[in-house]
């Protein structure tokens, strides 16, 4: 078989090749970090570092494109080489590029001179890409920590703002707390199965009849808690609103979009590849997690008048929708997840870009009422924000692809081997509730008169404007031609979703006693 299109991951060289995009990003980020620290801090330097970071993202994207174009495959191993990984990577890089672009404008306006912040974003992203690729619990943990540590720092980037510092502190404390649960869960799963490789875990669960093993189930439950924290699923969501509110706005967008998508990618892969055999056991818990998250996120969002908090709760609600795709546990579910993550990332980046554009220096004007009559002073900004809100709501046509994202999740839920129609009903009902705050924003922008004393917001800076326009256009276009993206996600389920491989040559089986039955 051709060495360039089929990788044998047992060879270190070929394993490294499989990690090429991740290594490219990591290595590039290290070099940029040195360069960023090399020269004295200045606006100009910060801008050039940001531009270089964007360039590096483009390079990484090209590398990913090459893998996708050549349809590279690999033997089972610690790293996945499949479409699920590549599409997830593209979603993450899209979110990262948007964040860096926004940060470049934002840092300048807020008087933050920290060129290394852009590079930190890249480092967090490389952790995320590891998450999307990981087929081994150890690599999952590595990715999560790489991502999290960088994000803790990013949340406290604005050192002069006490709120930013508070956010970073809270995020770090609670994050550490939950990481403990995650790690403990992994340890228990290893204890039950003797493996950290996902497919091997699934394989052994089946082979040795571990589906009722308390050790394994406790491990899965604790891992669920850990991931529930990372994706901000209720009741593990408490950190999100405070952290989102305090962090610099572009970083909030980054957390809401990219961090969540990356954690979900690993979450989904683990549950699909390793835990499918114990579906009956975890199904209930995930079902309730999804339902509660959808309800809590949407209902509490109704009361929010600070736009960043509102979007924080909105992102909690969306974690609930994505959990539905995970609960389904079918190839359609993972396809729906990728489509949803793509659309959600664009819409979230877009709406945070609008918040950045309208936030005066010092992060004021973040109340929804500050948006009153926006239509009369910055019509295009109002239209774009309306598109993002409608996309998050899942409104057809004007919300672009947002409608199809929800539609595919609902379809996956209803067409699953065991249809989850109750969950679909909850999804639709909570979406109706969500209209209460999404449409409120739209109403305020278009129907409320502008407060006479309110200053006309300054024109958006170039990169911010570009992110807003590109996001809105992309959403609308995808809303008219969703098939393009659908075809990309088709057949992109992780390996283990359909069948658990019978044998795995990559990791030798430990000599466990034969099945007890």
């Amino acid at each position, binding site marked *: 078989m051709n060495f360039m299109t089929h990788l044998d991951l047992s060879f270190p060289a070929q394993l490294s090749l499989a990690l090429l995009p991740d290594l490219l990003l990591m290595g590039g980020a290290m070099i940029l970090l040195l360069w960023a620290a090399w020269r004295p801090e200045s606006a100009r330097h910060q801008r050039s570092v940001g531009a270089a970071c964007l360039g590096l993202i483009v390079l990484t994207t090209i590398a990913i494109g090459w893998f996708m174009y050549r349809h590279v495959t690999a033997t089972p191993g610690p790293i996945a080489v499949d479409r699920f990984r590549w599409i997830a990577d593209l979603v993450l890089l899209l979110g990262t590029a948007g964040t860096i672009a926004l940060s470049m404008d934002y840092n300048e306006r807020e008087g933050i001179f920290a060129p290394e912040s852009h590079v930190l974003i890249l480092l967090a992203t490389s952790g995320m890409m590891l998450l999307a690729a990981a087929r081994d619990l150890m690599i999952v943990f590595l990715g999560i920590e790489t991502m999290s540590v960088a994000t803790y720092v990013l949340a406290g980037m604005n050192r002069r703002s006490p709120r930013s510092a508070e956010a970073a502190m809270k995020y770090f*404390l609670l994050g550490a707390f939950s990481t403990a649960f995650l790690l403990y869960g992994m340890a228990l799963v290893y204890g039950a199965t003797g493996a950290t490789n996902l497919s091997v875990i699934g394989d052994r669960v089946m082979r040795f009849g571990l589906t009722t093993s308390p050790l394994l189930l406790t491990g899965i439950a604790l891992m669920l808690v850990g991931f529930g924290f990372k994706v901000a699923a209720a009741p593990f969501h408490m950190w999100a609103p405070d952290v989102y509110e305090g962090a610099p706005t572009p970083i909030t967008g980054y957390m809401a979009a990219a961090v969540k998508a990356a954690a979900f990618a690993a979450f989904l892969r683990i549950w699909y590849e390793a835990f499918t055999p114990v579906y009956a056991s975890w199904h209930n818990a995930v079902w309730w997690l999804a339902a509660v998250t959808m309800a809590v996120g949407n209902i509490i969002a109704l009361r929010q008048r600070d736009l960043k908090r509102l979007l924080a709760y909105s992102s909690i609600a969306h974690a609930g929708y994505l959990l539905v795709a995970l609960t389904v546990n079918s190839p359609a579910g993972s396809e729906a997840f990728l489509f949803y993550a793509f659309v959600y990332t664009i819409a979230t980046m877009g709406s945070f870009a609008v918040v950045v554009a309208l936030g005066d220096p010092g992060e004021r004007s973040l109340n929804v009422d500050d948006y009153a009559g926006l239509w009369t002073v910055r019509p295009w900004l109002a239209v774009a924000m309306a598109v993002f809100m409608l996309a998050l709501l899942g409104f057809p046509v004007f919300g672009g692809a947002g409608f199809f994202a929800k539609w595919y999740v609902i379809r996956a839920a209803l067409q699953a081997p065991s249809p989850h129609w109750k969950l679909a009903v909850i999804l639709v009902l909570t979406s109706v509730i969500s209209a209460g705050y999404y449409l409120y924003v739209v109403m305020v922008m278009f129907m409320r008169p502008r407060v006479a004393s309110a200053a006309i917001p300054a024109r958006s800076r170039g990169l911010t404007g570009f992110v807003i326009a590109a996001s809105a256009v992309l959403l609308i276009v995808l809303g008219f031609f969703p098939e393009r993206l659908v075809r990309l996600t088709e057949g992109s389920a992780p390996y283990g979703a359909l069948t658990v491989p019978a044998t795995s040559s990559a990791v030798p089986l430990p000599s466990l006693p034969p099945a007890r039955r």
Partner: protein
Amino acid sequence: MLLQHEVSAAAHPLAGTVVEWLWLLPLLPLLGFVINGLLSLVPATVLGPGDPDMAHGADGAHGEAGHGVAVHAHETADEHGAHGDDHHPVVRHRFAWLASIVGPAVLAIAFGLAVAMFFAMRGAGGGEMHAPFVQRYFSWMPAGTFHLDAAFQLDQLSMLMVLVITGVGTLIHLFSIGYMQDDPGYPRFFAYLNLFVAFMLVLVLGANYPVLFVGWEGVGLCSYLLIGFWFSEKANADAGKKAFIVNRIGDFGLLIAMFLLFANLGTLDFVAVNENVTRLAFGGPLITTICLFMFLGCTGKSAQIPLYIWLPDAMAGPTPVSALIHAATMVTAGVYLIARSSVLFSMAPVAGLTVTVIGALTAIFAATIGLKQWDIKKVLAYSTVSQLGYMFMGVGSGAYVAGVFHLATHAFFKALLFLGSGSVIFAMHAAYHHTGSHEDAQDMRNMGGLAPYMRVTWILMWIATLAIAGVPFFAGFFSKDEILGSLFLRAHDSTLADARWLGIPGSAVLYGAYALGLAAALLTAIYMTRMMIYTFHGPNRTGEKERDHLHEAPWIMTGPLVVLGILSAVGGWLNLPAITSFLGPVGALDRWLEPVVGESALRVTNGVAPEATHSTELALVGGAVAIALLGIIIAAVRLKPARLVPKAQSPEEHGIERVLANKYYVDEAYDRVVVEPTVGLSRGVLWKGIDQGIIDNVLVNGSARLARGFSSLGSWVQSGQIGTYAWVLVIGVLAVLGAFTIR
């Protein structure tokens, strides 16, 4: 144009002829609607001449020159409009001239096209052509096994209807040019009128029930728009709403009939329905139910008991509208529908008897009300209801040609009567406006002795009156006589006579209907003569000053009257009975419509065409003529116009007169029994109780309050204290672990 012919359509004898332009027929008035509608959007009104008579002062159409002079003496500062029903200032639309070209022109072209089609049809065999010419345009509603095309069809029945609609329509459009000249909504009026004709043509050309229904609803819409044309007066707007709502009840019936047809036959195409309907049991409950629901639709659109109440109120619209929509065309749609569905009705004798009974009752009932109305248009409105009853007696008893024949002649003479009354009202209004009087221009008590002032209108309206009364050799004589004769013959031998209706033998029902028809004919002659005498004869009661301003309408209004007068006089030649074979060819319409309704008519009469002996026929005709003359004589002898006083000084009526003048209090009874309970229920229970109380308060606001309550709870837990967060996290962990123990 996207034309998808059926395979058979290409082989149709009409293929390749002018009939291929069928689609153009409704499109022409639709084009007129678009143009006039756009014009009406231009808010360009200009102050018209101070006096409307200035426009026709020059056309020389005044009855007497002296009046013209007298009129011109007053054209100084009077800024009030002349016609219609209220005192608008004379503001004319800037593009009125364009609307008065476009509006009638599209109709005239459509009429020309229809005439060309008629000759093409005659050339292709006319009465021998048995399959309709069907044109399919696009697939309208494909849903599973249900396929429905947007398709038109032309057969002999549609052809007749198209000729009547476009012909009479053109004349009424021309009349409107004069009648509406000073209305600021002039282009809007023509836009609605054009739209109406377009929908009416869709109604009669549709090749299946749903296309017919589109036209059916479309004309209903236009009727609503035109009744409320002067919507700034609440009464007019209310009348429009009443017409619309009452018609909804009927439409509900028609929809049910369509659903039943589709559920049982799997198709709604006229051709396919007619082919398949014989699968159903003859006289069975299913076919009877379908026909009765369909007839419910007809009672709405064609103003029969119990849904006739909207038509008299519809007189609130401009008089040309009353003539076109509420006399000549739209209200006959029910008659057309039954003739079109003749195969269905011929299969259901009980339904046929029901139609006949309702028709007979409506005819006599409306005629008695017509006896005591003072508003000239109200007399004609009840007369229309009554005459529609005759048509239903015809089509109900299986005499489809007779019903359609009366439809055509009625279109002529009733349009003439309405336009004539319009001419009278026009004159009265002009007179009252000159003196600033606010008397009622439509009340006959304010008229009297108008004949010398408006000779043309007077003569023509007498022609129409003789026609509707059934005086020999005028149009109505032949058609009404044919209906009554058919009833008499079918009472003797037909499937209807053999059936039982509510336990009564069918033949008794038909004889009873015949008797009611004769009685209604007597009343018709009486109330029409009364109307003529009170309007045109005896002393004038308009008022001393106003009298000088009475004058004939301009030629653009009298011209169409003359044409309609000729048609009312000779319309009977369409279908001469055998007894008058000396006048010309006998039964032309019978032969023309034979391919459409012949089979059904034969089924009703047990397969043999009913033939009356010469003496029977002579007796029937003689009786009818005697009754018509008797009615005229009674009215002429008994009525004393000299004793009438103007409306303002008239005493209250008493006894039966008062009951009749108040239309048997049917409107009040409906109000009490149907409207008030419905409104009360809607307001008290549905609105305040269910909508405001349960839906708004409990469900909508309640769920919002509930959500907000939970929201506050959540915000309260979200205290910002990291210790709280950690505790919640731990509770979550316990919950997740618990969930794993549940299977």
